[in-house]
């Protein structure tokens, strides 16, 4: 495979000069996200997220399997994010690149380890049968900030997805098809979104660090440090990943968490608005409320 092309000296100098004048190449403010677009597929649990030129397709599927023997009451939830040469020819199939490893690790930390999906609700018969929920993240086009976009994609898809309804009688489980019973949504406990910050220090004057949000590919290639904060809209930090790079002031970093909270609130509002629009589109003749076999949650 060819090696990824690094930005040329000219590009780099232009970028640095612009940054000194408080400008980004695409004219955005330092803390501004690119235009976010969220589309849903024909099937349930299929989303297509566009963040500028970054485009991520997420597909959720469910099947019945046996739970792990050491966790008999938990269902399975796996996220796969394999980058294909479609993303860019520099990714080789079946050989994970650093980008791919980081993406899957961060998604794993933010969504799985924070307990966004209630895996206990996926249990059908303890130790014997459970649902296995699988999220396939397909990166179609890579223009930076894959983690944030993938996180939005997976969470929106999980909220959009409906698993087939089941009933349990003693030891036997009946899985109803879509024609027999209206499928039920997944039980999601909270929605942690990721916000990635990129840091540039040596490019500007001494002792000052410039922080950018939602970096494009060029900005990602030129950055000297980055931190990903996984946070939900209630301000609960689920994970912070700062893997090397320039050292940061602790107080400044707390400021980043505050910025992340503001951004996550915006993203949450956007995703729920799009989900509502989609639900209205799917609600044929306003019968969805009656068709639903789901019990109202007591909270």
């Amino acid at each position, binding site marked *: *495979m*060819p090696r990824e092309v690094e930005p040329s000296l000219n590009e780099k100098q232009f970028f640095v000069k612009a940054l000194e004048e408080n400008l980004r190449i695409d004219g955005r403010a330092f803390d501004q996200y690119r235009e976010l677009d969220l589309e849903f*597929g*024909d*099937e349930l649990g*299929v989303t297509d997220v566009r963040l500028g*030129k970054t*485009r991520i*397709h997420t*597909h959720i*599927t469910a*099947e019945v399997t046996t739970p792990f023997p050491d966790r008999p009451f938990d269902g399975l939830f796996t996220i*796969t994010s*394999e980058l*294909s*040469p*479609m*993303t*860019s*020819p520099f990714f080789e*199939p079946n050989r994970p690149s650093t980008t791919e490893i980081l993406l899957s690790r961060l998604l794993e930390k933010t969504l799985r380890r924070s307990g966004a999906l209630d895996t206990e609700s996926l249990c059908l018969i303890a130790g014997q049968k459970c649902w296995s929920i*699988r999220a*396939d993240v*397909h990166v*179609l*086009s*890579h*223009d930076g900030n894959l983690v944030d976009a993938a996180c939005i994609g997976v969470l929106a898809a999980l909220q959009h997805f409906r698993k*087939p309804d089941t009933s349990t009688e003693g030891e036997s489980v009946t*899985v109803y*098809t*879509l*024609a027999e019973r209206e499928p039920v949504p997944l039980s999601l406990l909270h929605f942690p979104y990721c916000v990635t910050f990129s840091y540039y220090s040596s490019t500007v004057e001494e002792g000052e660090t410039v922080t950018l949000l939602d970096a494009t590919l060029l900005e990602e290639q030129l950055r000297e440090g980055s931190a990903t904060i996984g946070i939900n809209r209630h301000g609960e930090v689920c994970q912070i990943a700062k893997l090397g790079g320039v050292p940061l002031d602790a107080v400044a970093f707390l400021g980043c968490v505050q910025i992340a909270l503001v951004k996550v609130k915006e993203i949450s509002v956007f995703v729920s608005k799009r989900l509502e629009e989609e639900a209205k589109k799917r609600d044929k003749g306003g019968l969805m409320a009656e068709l639903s076999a789901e019990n109202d949650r007591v909270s």
Partner: protein
Amino acid sequence: MTNATASSAILSHLHRADGSATFSQNGYTVIGAVNGPIEVQRRDELPVEAAIDVIVRPAAGVGGTRERHLESILQSTLRQIILIHNFPRTLIQVTLQITNTPEDKVAGSKIVQASSHLAILPTLLQTALLALLSASMPLSVIFTSVLIAAHKDGAITSLTPNPSLVGFESADSVHVLAFTLEGKLLLAESQGTFTLDDWDNILEMAGSVCVPKDGADIEGGVRIEETKEDMTTFVKCTLEAKVAQDLHWYT
């Protein structure tokens, strides 16, 4: 779902790939990207021609033997039409990502996965072709493909081009045929039991779906007002629209 057999295509919509296309037909949607000619690994390098690498990725799950088999069919078909001798010791990489398969409301999703690999083959072939065209890859000829399901009813065999999922599952035999623009057979994959007479009928029907009925207007370009059902016209119209859009600045 909308009209099941209607085809639609979008060209050059991914910004990092050299060429890309999304093609939907028969409830299947495939996104294709082509990169090339690019540097090839030493072990894959061919001294006098370009190596072609086809990657088929399913919508859910990782690719298995089914995807590898589809890849080998696609690879040998695309080898015939790309001018591989123009690019010795390089690689042409075709990535095909399946994003949508027709859903079966009665059966679970697993059964669709397990059924024949042939159902998606025409969509994959057509996406690959459109992506190659979008990448401006020199081709010797373009092709079109069709899926035909044959149902036996006593002595009579009825043929359905581009059948629905139910039609496909209940068929006695299914066939995928690809024709070049001149009407020459490029690929024939069959599954199931059928007789030689059936095969002749299938060949004839596939030809009428894939290739324009009168060979006369191949030279003269496309006449839009003539809305024929064949795939060649579809490919031409898609490309014409794309070129017109790209050259809108040019008087």
